[in-house]
């Protein structure tokens, strides 16, 4: 590496990137050292205290300048990493990672002076809980590792690091328990991530398209969580978690269908209540997908199913609505989608007006205007509320897709279409594989030993074994 050329390039770059600082410091009588730092990603205090202060000393000269600096930092300030730079590409990566580059004679060395740019550990936004830990992962990679490490203080917790993204050079960490997790699973996750050859990955959520590409399904086959306690629980079950620089959530692999009916709070409540809530969630899944379709099917094709009083009641309500049932259903569903998306993107201090307007539009006004019938408002509300039971956004998305598909099938073929749609749903669920294992485990195929923490939940003291479909090391309590 020719340091003169590098300096020339850096000065050119400085014209385009004014936050790149290049300081020329006189060393001894005739020589100069160059300090290069990107002030946006670096801590000014660290650069001043540990680098510039050293060079301001009058005692430094001769050929041991860099050697002494390195020695001083290694001996006195172990928190700062020192990295010798041997290629240009690495140099730029380090500059933009917050390192301070010291160029002296023909040697280039980098010292970690990264600035703290993350928001700190905060409460989980997308997975709010009442009981249990309330910290969440942040955009800081090391902080995320720390949140896991402080829960699992074991030498068996292994971290494998890789870099993903040609331009972003994002650091990705694969965490797993060495004594529990299957080696094939780790290798499978690692090789999937290593194959990624893209200019940039912004968040760990981007990995799902690289990991679940073989499955033709709208159901999520990987789970993301921003709760460290959840992540650690999954680690202890023998799963792998993937964390990434600048990502406030981690990826869990493998993920099964039943995982979406569980919540971290289940583990902090009495088993009876946790089981009850899981059953509620299980029914809500079907209610969310099937309610509008079933209503459309019986109202337009199979009216004979309804008791006469209910039929008359529905007929009266539908009497003033000028649209076919399916249009009415789509109209109301679409309005709900608008409100849902609007509400998700609206700051909380402005959300009240949206709620009031939504309640009026979806409720009374739409009925009074004769656009929708009251029973359709109830049907859509039941479906929508049921889908909101799921905290995982990906699951909500798949519920939406299936809900619309079922509605179309019901509108075209009545109860027969409805039943066929249901079969299609089951076929799709059963055909999905997650890291080579059936997605519907442990229900289909039924694994008796894993039922203590599937739909039902037993006391944690009685859960003495790990799920046998995840690991061969199943003994949890010895």
């Amino acid at each position: 590496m020719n340091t003169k050329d590098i300096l020339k390039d850096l000065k050119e770059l400085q014209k385009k990137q004014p936050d790149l600082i290049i300081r020329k410091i006189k060393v001894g009588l005739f020589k100069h050292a160059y300090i290069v730092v990107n002030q946006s990603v670096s801590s000014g205090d660290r650069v001043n205290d540990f680098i510039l202060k050293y060079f301001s000393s009058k005692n430094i000269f001769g050929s041991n300048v860099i050697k002494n600096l390195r020695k001083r930092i290694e001996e006195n300030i172990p928190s700062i990493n020192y990295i010798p730079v041997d290629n240009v590409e690495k140099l730029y990566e380090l500059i933009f990672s917050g390192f301070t580059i010291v160029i002296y004679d023909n040697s280039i060395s980098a010292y970690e002076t990264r600035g703290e740019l993350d928001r700190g550990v905060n409460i989980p936004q997308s997975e709010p809980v009442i009981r249990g830990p309330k910290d969440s992962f942040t955009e800081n990679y090391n902080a995320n590792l720390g949140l896991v490490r402080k829960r699992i203080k074991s030498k068996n917790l292994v971290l494998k690091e890789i870099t993903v993204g040609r331009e972003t050079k994002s650091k990705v960490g694969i965490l797993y328990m060495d004594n529990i997790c299957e080696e094939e699973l780790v290798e499978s996750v690692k090789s999937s991530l290593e194959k990624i050859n893209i200019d940039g990955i912004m968040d760990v959520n981007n990995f799902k398209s690289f990991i679940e590409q073989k499955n033709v399904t709208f159901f999520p086959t990987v789970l993301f969580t921003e709760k460290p306690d959840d992540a650690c629980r999954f680690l202890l079950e023998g799963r792998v978690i993937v964390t990434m620089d600048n990502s406030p959530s981690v990826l869990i692999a493998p993920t099964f269908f039943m995982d979406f009916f569980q919540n971290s709070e289940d583990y902090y409540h009495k088993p009876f209540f946790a089981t009850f809530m899981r059953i509620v969630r299980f029914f809500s899944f079907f209610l969310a997908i099937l309610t509008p379709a079933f209503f459309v099917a019986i109202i337009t094709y199979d009216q004979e199913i309804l008791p006469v009083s209910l039929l008359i009641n529905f007929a009266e309500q539908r009497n003033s609505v000028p649209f076919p049932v399916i249009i009415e259903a789509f109209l109301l569903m679409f309005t709900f989608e608008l409100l849902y998306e609007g509400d998700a993107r609206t700051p909380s201090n402005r959300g009240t007006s949206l709620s009031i307007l939504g309640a009026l539009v979806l409720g009374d006004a739409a009925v009074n205007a004769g656009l929708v019938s009251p029973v359709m408002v109830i049907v859509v509300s039941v479906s929508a509320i049921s889908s909101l039971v799921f905290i995982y956004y990906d699951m909500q998305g798949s519920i939406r897709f299936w809900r619309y598909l079922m509605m179309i099938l019901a509108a075209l073929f009545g109860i027969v279409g409805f039943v066929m749609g249901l079969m299609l749903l089951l076929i799709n669920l059963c055909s999905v594989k997650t890291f080579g294992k059936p997605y519907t485990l442990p229900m289909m195929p039924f694994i008796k030993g894993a039922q203590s923490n599937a739909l039902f939940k037993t006391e944690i003291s009685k859960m003495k074994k790990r799920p046998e479909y995840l690991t061969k090391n199943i003994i949890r309590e010895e």
Partner: protein
Amino acid sequence: MKKIILLVFMCFVCTGCFDYQELGELGIISAMSIVKNEDNFRVDIQLINIIESGDHGVVESPVTVVSGEGPTVFDAVRSMNLRISKSFFPANMAYLIVDKSVLEENDLREVMDFFARHTKLSLNFLVITTTDSDPSDVMASLSEFNINAATNMAEVIRLSEKRYGASYSLTFLEYLKDYFEPGITPVYPNIYMHGDAEISEDIDDLKKTETESYIELKDLVTFDKQGNAIHLGVDESMGYNFLKNHVTNATVTSTCGDEYFTVETLSSKFKFEDDLKNNKIKIIADIDGEISFYGCKEDLNESKVLKDVTTSFENKVKENVLSTLNLAKQSQVDFVGVGNFIYKNNTKYFDFDKNDWDKEGLSKIDFDIEINANLYKQGNLKGDI
């Protein structure tokens, strides 16, 4: 992909968009009557008036009666579309009134064919008849308890069968069975119009405390081959229901000297045993009941008195059953199904294909009736009366 194609194909095979029907397009039929006028069928249907029935309080008639005539039942129904812009929806029909004018074999078969082939019918609607009123008057009559008069009457029939034992809710499915099986003739609940038919159609009549005109359940009736009505009185109706094991809670009042006591049956089971070598059918019954009213002078706590009361009750039931069987024999119509029992258990005894069971077979049968009752002492009257 193959699975998806298969599923879509099956959807198309099993149903299709052509079955799509909005609720507003349906004319919901609550009751129907069929009468034969010379060569044509006259069909009256009671349609639920969707617009008006939703109003609070009765403002206008909650039902509309439409009539149509045609050489076939199907034709008669479709002719109503000359004035009604609805497709008729019979799935929730409460009852069908079969007039005696359609009891001629071919006509009745056509009626049965019309309903039996309708895929959207549950066949659990009731089949009734009216011997003393015009079916169209019954159809137009309103009810004070239910905006849907037909549903109200169907409930009346079911409840009186269950709680009184003197009626029988004949469903269309049972009707088909009774009609086509040998050795049994259907028995119909018989309703009639009490008072002036025109007043019964008037909504203002319902606003009065005591309505002047209404439809009422009369008795059970069956028809011989000439179409003559054979009426079963209260005792015969009760006997019929006992024999057919239709009774859940029947009330039987019997005497103890000059006084009366009433028993409410809790369960009853009648079974037939054949002794056809002696031309005899043995009827054995086990009945559990509770004395719900006791007006006799004797002390019921004495075991002899309870035994006497039980015997009196058994005799009364036996009397009812015998009078039912005697009526069948006298009228030469086996509505009890004795012939059907023999047909299923001893086919060689009588040739049902070549001979007329009602005339030649039933009259030769003697009945030996054994009633075993188990009565409980008078207890509290629980719940509703």
